[in-house]
């Protein structure tokens, strides 16, 4: 975390010494995280390292046993998911998980479920169409019939419809063909360039770090590395463990 950020701005999202348990199993151990406006950060880690639990804790689907989850300076430990979504986080789920039998438009509108400002919703729809012209062509089609890449666009569009301050992305490269992974990461970068803070959970460390500003590495529930993307890419430990170099 660079000095200017911690001095100048409050974090949009923050974990302060967060611990979570599933029954007796200790998942996250004293995790500290912070995401600042406009950043693209990624959380890396292998299987069972606690990546998904981190996301669930952020969204309020898992309640931490100790520590604080902070949104924009406000402790939200016991606020329900709906409150958190209304206050600026939305997730693009792993494997997109669109509402398959609903139309593309309905998917998008459901993204804005908690919002009551009809005119602004219309404006945001237009924004999504502008971002993804292909989505506009398919508005009345059932989302399950779209191709993988188009589904990804709808999933991102659906998340954007809630006007998040931070977009959470769960494994955006999962289940996509290599060419589409590339395209998908370009999309993410594009949205980030427009000023959206993005928190991305990924296994594909190389790819993620190539577009991220900063990264954390989780290992069995503990943050073992926390640095800028360039530094992580250069880190020999990192290279050995996650970047596929001996």
């Amino acid at each position, binding site marked *: 975390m660079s000095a200017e950020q911690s001095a100048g701005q409050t974090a949009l999202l923050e974990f302060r010494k967060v611990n979570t348990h599933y029954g007796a199993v200790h998942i996250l151990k004293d995790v500290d995280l912070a995401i600042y406006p406009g950043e693209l950060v990624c959380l890396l880690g292998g299987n069972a390292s606690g990546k998904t639990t981190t996301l669930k804790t952020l*969204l309020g*689907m898992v309640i931490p046993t100790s520590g604080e989850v902070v949104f924009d300076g406000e402790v939200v430990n016991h606020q*329900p*998911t*709906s409150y*958190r*979504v*209304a206050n600026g986080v*939305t*997730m693009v*789920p792993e494997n997109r*998980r669109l*509402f*398959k*039998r*609903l*139309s593309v438009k*309905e998917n998008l*509108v*459901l*993204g804005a*479920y*908690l919002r009551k400002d009809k005119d602004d919703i219309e404006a945001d729809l237009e924004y999504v169409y502008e971002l993804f012209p292909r989505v506009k062509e398919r508005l*009345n*089609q*059932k989302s399950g*019939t*779209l*191709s993988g890449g*188009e589904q990804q666009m709808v999933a991102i569009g*659906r998340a954007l419809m*809630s006007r998040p301050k931070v977009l959470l992305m769960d494994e955006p490269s999962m289940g996509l063909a290599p060419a589409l992974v590339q395209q998908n990461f370009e999309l993410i970068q594009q949205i980030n360039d427009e000023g959206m803070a993005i928190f991305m959970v990924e296994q594909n460390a190389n790819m993620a770090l190539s577009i991220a500003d900063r990264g954390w590495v989780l290992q069995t529930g503990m943050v073992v590395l926390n640095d800028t993307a360039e530094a992580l890419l250069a880190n020999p430990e990192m290279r050995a463990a996650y970047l596929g170099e001996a």
Partner: protein
Amino acid sequence: MSASATPAWFQLDWRRVGRWGGLCALGIVLVSLIGMPVGLDRRIIIEGRLSLGYLALIWMPLLFGYLVPKRIVLEGVENPDPGIRDVLAGLCAGVLAGLGPLLLILGIDNFNLRKPLVNWSPQLLELLTFGRGIGYGVAVWFAICAVLGLVGSSMHVLPANVRRVVSFIAYGLLFISVLEAAIDDLSEGFGLESLTDAMYARRGGLTVKFSIILAVVIGVLSIVTKGRVKGAANHYKGLQGAERKRASMLLFSGVTALCIVLPMFLGMIMNELLANVGLFLLLALGLNIVVGLAGILDLGYVAFFAVGGYTTAVLTSAESPFFTPELHFGFALIVVVAMAGLTGLVIGAPVIRMRGDYLAIVTLGFGEIIRLLFMSDWLKPYFGGAQGITNVPHVDLGFAVVKGTDPRSVFYMVLVLCVLAVYVSWRLQGSRLGRAWMAIREDEQVAEAMGINTVNAKLMAFVVGAMMAAVSGAVLAAKVGSVFPNSFMILVSIIILVVVIVGGMGNIAGVLVGSFVLIGVLGGPRQPGLLQEFQSYKLLIYGALLVFMMLKRPEGLVPSARRSQELHQEEFLQDAWLKGEDHDIEEAAEAAAAVGGSEGTGDQA
């Protein structure tokens, strides 16, 4: 090689022929042994020629003959060159099917299995041999099956126009003769007895002369109307905005007028039947919200029906054990709705956090618990135990009295309530809550991540569904004049579920059609339908229909409006192809022509 010696038209898919022919033979044996032919023999379709009992057997070779040559439909293009080969396949399957009657005839003649198989009877033998001896019977059955298999398969070879006319005539005649009672009833109302007297023979069934006349009339009609109906429907679907609204209003007022005027010309039986359809439609609309929209598989839905019935009985009946003031039905209805909402909350709260199968099992249990509570000795001072509560008064509306002995009045009341329920369902479907329900149905976790309070939304679905069921129960109590625990068996839940599934889940029009087809034609759990003869086979038919629908047409009889309106034809085709759904050649060809190539299909493949 020997294969080269056999001519092309003889190269059949023998495995397929064997499988379908064998299945058909088995089907004939099965249908015979459940007693359909003998049981339905007295119901005549065409005087002196055909009874419903024989029809129950001979539809099978016809259908299987039709199915044998059917190839997998690839991208909407069916079997490219139907030819003599297909007809031959149908013939062979038909001959194989003849093994069914053969087995039965020889079996019944030589062994006595009446103990385990009630219908292993001399009557069945008599029927199968046409009373003319075994040799004759076997020969005739082989001939019948072969010819019908041939006719069925030749449907593929005939030009589309001829096929259309033939099937219209067949369905039309079947329809007119099977619905004899209803048509009689109607014609009496309109003063057309002389026509029906000429049409139907004295002992039932169409007269031969009139079946020929009718066949000609239907044939001509089918040629005249060709494409008109579909054209009108497409025109309606193509309408936009205000125009569409006007067309919808026109359609709606037409249907309303029909609903109001028609019962005046109908007799007791038909009105009773319509009232029953309405009662079950109310139930189905409620369950449609729970199962169809919110995706909560509630198998104990009958509980709310019972709550509605009992609340009404307790509040309005003079004989209810502990509540003596007789309230007016209107007041009772308000309490009923409130009670149903409350019960929905109480049952729903613990159940709603469960998912899928678990939820289904727990609701099944709750449904039984409620019935057992009403039946229990413990609550006898309140609900009368197994004797129930009798003497529920008629509904006095001031300008009219609704009572069970006047089914027309019941129908009108049910009609009003149904219209209300349809309106509520329709509004809910398009509302924010409706969208939340659909999101939950599709993916509960993601719905939650979108900020939807899934527990509350699901509870709301439960409560709204409960209210509709309770209103239906209230009307039932007033109509029958009494409530008994045994009117609220688990079977009611199941049948309503079947209505919703067969009609089309999450689709109001589908539920309407489902109620009419299942409750109106086949009958409810205790209520007779148009086909009273099928009374004892009702559950079997329900089950078979359910299995068939789940396999072949999971979206229901009426594909949801969403599908037909919003999907482009190409996606529809893709879907159909992915699901292996069968289509008419005609329809598929039209669609293929509209697509003009297979662009856009690549994404899915």
